[in-house]
């Protein structure tokens, strides 16, 4: 009598059981608690100090998004770099080394289903680790802290996308390499490669800066600020899909290497085209309670109706702190509100140290419909004021009041025993229970 369950159903169950039997995943699960706890405990203490110092009406200084959730969920970024790839590598390398892969590949089945099952199951395992983050949220609420659902949702989406990308990449590399140790080294090399891109962007700017906007670290940073950009999300999905396709190509053990290389080149070209197209997608969701990623609504309305294209020429070096601040507090928001704006950075050196005395260094030139204006102000208000003066318009007053802040002076009660003691013990108990039930 044939089994009523489909082959894909069996594969998913098998992959899940393999994950449950994987010590790598249990170690990830055991360590994520103390990692999240360490960040959370430190964040709560720092938040309490700031709240006590600033008092009521402390405004954006007392924003849990930055003060609590940024550092707390930052633990997941670390785990995605240092632990998750090994869990993903194991699901491919384990099958390869035990001989299971040779058996399973003899069942006619779409490669998308095979790779998809592995990625889906490891991603499911990654989602289970969010339990530690949920414990932190519950503790924060129990202290009387403010919790914004949309902010946490966007943070979770960001770490899920980052996890999916990490898993897909690790699975692809494990499919291309014979041994798990090789796969681990190559995966870490790719991660370090993205760090080098970030470093080059910070030092030299230019093209590096454009590329660095889409590295996993930059992507996670945006989501950590409760900003969900359509293009960043689409690029992450395209890269994950491309990695899965490469994995599918290299799992065809019976195909000649030359053919697999050709197919991989095709997949990479298609992925590059998708990424390029995705980069142009407009739209974003600023889920932050403080609207820290957006310009005020009245300003955005005025910007949408500017009479001519706006060009901004910034004479600041890549490593100049003013340029970083200008980009962060004003120009990044301006780009989202006014995608047609053209921003040009000009400098003779990367540090700017020896350009300070140059005539024109530090100047920011605005051009709109033949009119030009210069300013050195790098605040959001200063940039908007210059643009509006140039356009001869003035936005309406913002109707919403300023963010009052959520000050909270509290000790992280119960967090240390929970994260450093109960969590690892519970994970250990679950490991014992689950692995006993498996066999």
């Amino acid at each position: 009598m044939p089994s009523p369950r489909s082959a894909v159903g069996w594969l998913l169950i098998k992959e899940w059981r393999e994950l449950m039997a994987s010590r790598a995943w249990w170690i990830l699960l055991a360590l994520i608690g103390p990692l999240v706890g360490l960040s959370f405990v430190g964040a709560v203490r720092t938040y309490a100090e700031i709240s006590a110092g600033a008092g009521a009406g402390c405004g954006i200084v007392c924003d849990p998004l930055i003060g609590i959730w940024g550092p707390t969920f930052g633990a997941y970024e670390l785990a995605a770099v240092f632990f998750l790839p090994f869990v993903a590598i194991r699901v491919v390398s384990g099958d390869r080394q035990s001989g299971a892969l040779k058996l399973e590949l003899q069942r006619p089945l779409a490669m998308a289903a095979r790779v998809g099952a592995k990625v889906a199951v490891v991603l499911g395992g990654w989602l289970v680790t969010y339990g530690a983050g949920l414990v932190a949220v519950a503790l924060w609420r129990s202290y009387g802290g403010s919790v914004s659902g949309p902010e946490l949702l966007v943070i979770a989406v960001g770490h899920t996308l980052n996890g999916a990308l990490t898993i897909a990449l690790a699975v692809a590399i494990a499919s291309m390499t014979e041994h798990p140790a090789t796969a681990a080294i190559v995966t870490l090399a790719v991660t370090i490669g993205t760090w080098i891109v970030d470093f080059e962007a910070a030092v030299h700017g230019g093209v590096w800066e454009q590329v660095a906007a889409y590295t996993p670290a930059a992507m996670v940073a945006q989501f950590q600020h409760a900003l969900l950009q359509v293009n960043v999300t689409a690029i992450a999905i395209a890269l994950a899909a491309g990695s899965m396709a490469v994995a599918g190509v290299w799992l065809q053990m019976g195909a000649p290497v030359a053919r697999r290389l050709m197919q991989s080149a095709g997949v990479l070209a298609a992925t590059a085209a998708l990424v390029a197209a995705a980069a142009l997608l407009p739209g974003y969701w600023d889920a932050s309670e403080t609207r820290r990623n957006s310009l005020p609504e009245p300003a955005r309305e005025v910007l949408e109706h500017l009479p001519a294209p706006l060009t901004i020429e910034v004479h600041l070096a890549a490593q100049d702190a003013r340029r970083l601040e200008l980009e962060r507090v004003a120009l990044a928001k301006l780009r989202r509100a006014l995608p047609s704006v053209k921003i040009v950075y000009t400098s003779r050196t990367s540090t700017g140290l020896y350009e300070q005395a140059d005539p024109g260094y530090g100047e920011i030139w605005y051009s709109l419909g033949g009119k030009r204006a210069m300013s050195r102000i790098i605040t959001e208000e200063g940039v908007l004021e210059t643009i509006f003066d140039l356009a001869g318009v003035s936005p309406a007053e913002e109707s919403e009041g300023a963010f009052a802040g959520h000050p909270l002076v509290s000790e992280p009660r119960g967090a240390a025993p929970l994260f450093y003691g109960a969590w690892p013990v519970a994970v250990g108990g679950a490991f014992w229970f689950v692995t006993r039930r498996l066999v």
Partner: protein
Amino acid sequence: MPRAEFDAPLLIRVSGVTKSYGRLVALADVSFSIRPGEVLGLIGPNGAGKTTLFECLAGVLSRDSGVVTLDGRPLTARDLHAHLFYVPDGIAPWPAESVRWALEYVTGFFGGSTDRIEDVTRQLDLAAVLDGSIGTLSKGQRKRVALAVGMLTPQRVLLVDEPFDGLDLRQGRDAAAALRAHAATGRTLVLSIHQIADAARVCDRFVLLSGGRVKGEGGTAELAALAASRGQAPASHDLEEVFLALT
């Protein structure tokens, strides 16, 4: 011992299969046929290319050239998987799983019949290890699990690499009996065996492989005649003597 009908229609024809690793030629123009319902022994010394040939046939290793046809029709990789199932030597698949679950999984995943699990378990004497994890089994037990995996798959042709390797005398005989019984259900078996005595015990016909080349194909009598025609007449019609004469 039941014997397959040798004049049965040709099932699978392997023609001109070649495989090289750099300058090392692992398989050179290998050709032979597999007939329906027979137990074909692929025999040869270690390093003869038996495993490479099986992996090329099963589509888990690319071949440089050659074609596999089914009743005259070339088979694609997907077709191969629909008709052939290959059990590699020295595997311990799904090591964390119990034997019981692995057999259920194999049956479900490959589309076999769950009714056969009990029979196969009994034939291969696996009842005592059903609840043990595969990773903790002895070499012989793992081999029997691997045989069970192959016997539970539904493809018409089963290729098993070294089915008796790691089995003691009694286990080897039991496994041979199980494989013969399995072939009697209508399945075609191709067994790669380096111990000639084992091959003689279980196979209907033989393909002699040495140095990546086919040295002969047929029953013992046919192979003895072939050796004689090459001026290498064996001392007796014992398969070992025939093998030595031809290689």
